[in-house]
């Protein structure tokens, strides 16, 4: 058993922290959010040049051979800065799918420019009725003479408006909830019949509802084998789940830190808030929630390459805990900030909103507890 970061991981962590401190003040962030794309393209290119975008990919794919621990290091530290750049949808989801299934040509055209920061690609798979079930897919792909015709509707496609290309899951055979029969396609965002309804999300991100109406795409849009997309989707969501859990741990640590600072400053009844024992004990509980989450994160990162059952069990434990601790730390931090906690001006509320969306993303606590029970 070894609990230490490699020297490289330590450097990676330091460089992200430096970036967050120097380039990502709250005012900067607000500007990025208010821009059309909802994030800063310069940052994204910086991420590419620093190697963060290529981290999870093999050297053959143009990456840096990073493992789950590296993904954890990146996401936990991006989380502390409440970074809105699309690392999860583009790198952890679409990137992972491209690396798994892409042909040489597809990798050259899509994965490589994504890793260098030139191309943003998002993954459209949620549907209004699917909730957290990855095999629930009604969007249809029908074979045509020279390719496929896509028809359907996808919900909450993150950063779609800033994406050059979308990866879309569609049913090519089977029934609504069958795992078998789902295929994955590369769809240029400008294709006729692709329409987006864009909106902001509560955590400062951008997302879109995607309508696909008689969208004609060429044969070489297919990623991997027909009907066999499910396990790749499942694996990509697993990696993204690890990623957002690490992000949540970064956020929770930061929220605890901000709450401690606030209570050490704010006075009521001629005492610092931090001197009230009832509040002290609640901050200890927040601290314990953080430590439990961190412990399961560390375990899960180490088990991502284990057998499927161990990995799935670790992920279910982790995401369940993040949902639980995210609610606890999130709500308590706001409460301990008092009235100031609910103002848009204070940072704490923005961390809270991101943490709150993470509770739902890729399945809430109940969903993962059920997963755990079924393993």
């Amino acid at each position, binding site marked *: 058993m070894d609990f230490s970061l490699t020297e490289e991981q330590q450097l990676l962590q330091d460089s992200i922290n430096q970036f967050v401190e120097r380039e990502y003040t709250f005012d900067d962030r607000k500007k990025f959010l208010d821009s059309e794309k909802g994030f800063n393209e310069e940052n994204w290119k910086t991420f590419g040049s620093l190697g963060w975008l290529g981290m999870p990919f093999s050297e053959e794919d143009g990456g840096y051979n990073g493992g789950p621990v590296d993904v954890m290091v990146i996401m936990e530290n991006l989380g502390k800065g409440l970074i809105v750049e699309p690392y999860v949808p583009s790198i952890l989801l679409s990137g992972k799918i491209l690396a798994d299934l892409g042909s040489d040509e597809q990798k050259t055209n899509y994965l490589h420019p994504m890793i260098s920061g030139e191309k943003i690609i998002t993954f459209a798979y949620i549907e*209004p009725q699917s*909730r*957290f079930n990855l095999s629930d897919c009604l969007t249809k792909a029908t074979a045509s003479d020279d390719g496929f015709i896509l028809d359907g509707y996808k919900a909450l496609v993150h950063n779609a408006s800033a994406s050059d290309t979308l990866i879309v899951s569609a049913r090519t055979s089977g029934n609504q*909830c069958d795992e078998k029969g789902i295929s994955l396609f590369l769809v240029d965002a400008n294709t006729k019949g692709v329409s987006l309804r864009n909106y902001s*999300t*509560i955590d400062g991100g951008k997302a879109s509802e995607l309508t696909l109406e008689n969208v004609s795409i060429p044969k070489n849009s297919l990623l991997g084998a027909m009907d066999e997309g499910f396990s790749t989707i499942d694996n990509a969501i697993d990696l993204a789940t690890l990623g957002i859990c690490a992000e949540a741990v970064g956020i929770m640590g930061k929220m605890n830190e901000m709450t401690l600072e606030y209570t050490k400053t704010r006075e009521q009844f001629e005492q610092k808030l931090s001197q009230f024992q*009832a509040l002290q004990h609640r901050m200890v509980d927040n601290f314990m929630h953080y430590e439990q989450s961190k412990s399961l994160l560390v375990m899960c990162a180490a088990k991502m390459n284990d057998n499927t059952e161990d990995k799935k069990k670790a992920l279910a434990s982790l995401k369940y805990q993040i949902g639980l601790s995210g609610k606890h730390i999130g*709500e308590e931090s706001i409460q301990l900030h008092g*009235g100031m906690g609910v103002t*848009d001006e204070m940072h704490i509320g923005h961390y809270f909103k991101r943490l709150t969306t993470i509770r739902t993303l890729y399945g809430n606590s109940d969903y993962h507890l059920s997963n755990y029970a079924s393993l």
Partner: protein
Amino acid sequence: MYNDVVYFALNYRGVLMNLSFSKEDQEFQQEVRTFIENNYPSEIKEKQDQGIPLSKEDTIKWHKILNDKGWLAVNWPEELGGTGWTITQKHIFQNELAAANTPTLMPFGVNMCGPVIYTFGSDEQKEFHLPKILNGDIWWCQGYSEPGSGSDLASLKTKAEKKGDVYVVNGAKTWTTLAQHADWIFCLVRTDGSGKKQEGISFLLIDMKTPGVEVKPIITIDGTHEVNMVYFDNVEVPVSNLVGEEGFGWSIAKFLLAHERTGIAGIPSLKRELDRLRDITTQIQVGEGSLKDDAMFMSKLDKLEIKLTAAEYTELRTLAAMSAGGHPGPESSILKILGTDLQQELSDLFVEAVGYYAHPFMTEEDLASNESRIGPDFAAPVMPHYLNYRKVSIYGGSNEIQRNVIAKAVLGL
């Protein structure tokens, strides 16, 4: 000894013997229902049912409808426009209003400033203000909290110096709900800086149009402008706007806080919202079925419903004690805690229910617009509500303060 305290406070000389409505009560219930059916404007109802924020005009319209019927100032003395209803009738009335999802009226005039004025005010104040409150001609807001004094209300610093026949007011108030729409503000101000901090506080009525009053919005995490900072820069307020004596403000504040705590639980609305959530679970598809088949989720809903029932009967027991001659004392703090816990937990269950469709950021303008919403209609207001409702455990005396109050005044700690 504890026994005495607790039994005095909460055993209410007895035990609920009969929960059924009498024939008269049933007739009254029917009367209220019929009145609402015939008088609740359909355009307001539609907005309410779709979670579209109401305008000030909407709210005032409903206010006037109730006032015209004589059903506005339910708790006021009959001779001043009150209803003289029994607690059962009040209970029925509140439940019917909530079940019909009628607008929540601003409490600042009718429930807060009104009772202060008819209890402590001068004849002049009564004559001028009470009719205007009833008629909705003056909208009130509340000037209590200050940037430096949150839970520690008595540490407030806004100063009112008497100069001739005016007080010159300087300072700032915060968290002032809907000050941007208000005509008048009732304020706690410091008229004396020496002595115990509670003793130098006075209760002052201030016209918001007086020169030197400035309102600045505070945007909250749900993106709305509901609360404000209110600044006072050499604002001259006639001495006749003082309620009670100088230095009597803290007693009025305590009187008001206790009043505020009972209503704050919001039990009737909670019942309506919980029923609505049950209904929504049948509309949310999950696999072959709906969210209603999810035993884990439904079990949380059931637990909440039981907790709500417990809160409802705790409120009824408190009201019965009040009607038996008491007035809401420190034990009403328990209702504030229970009610706001329920409101927050329920708002979280709504978020959980709608899944990903809680994530689109719906501003007040989005909700009010004619454009179709992202996702199902019921999903859109859910996250703003969850975020906005973080406030309920903080305002009206934070739940930590309520626990301190119970510890001290009820448990004798």
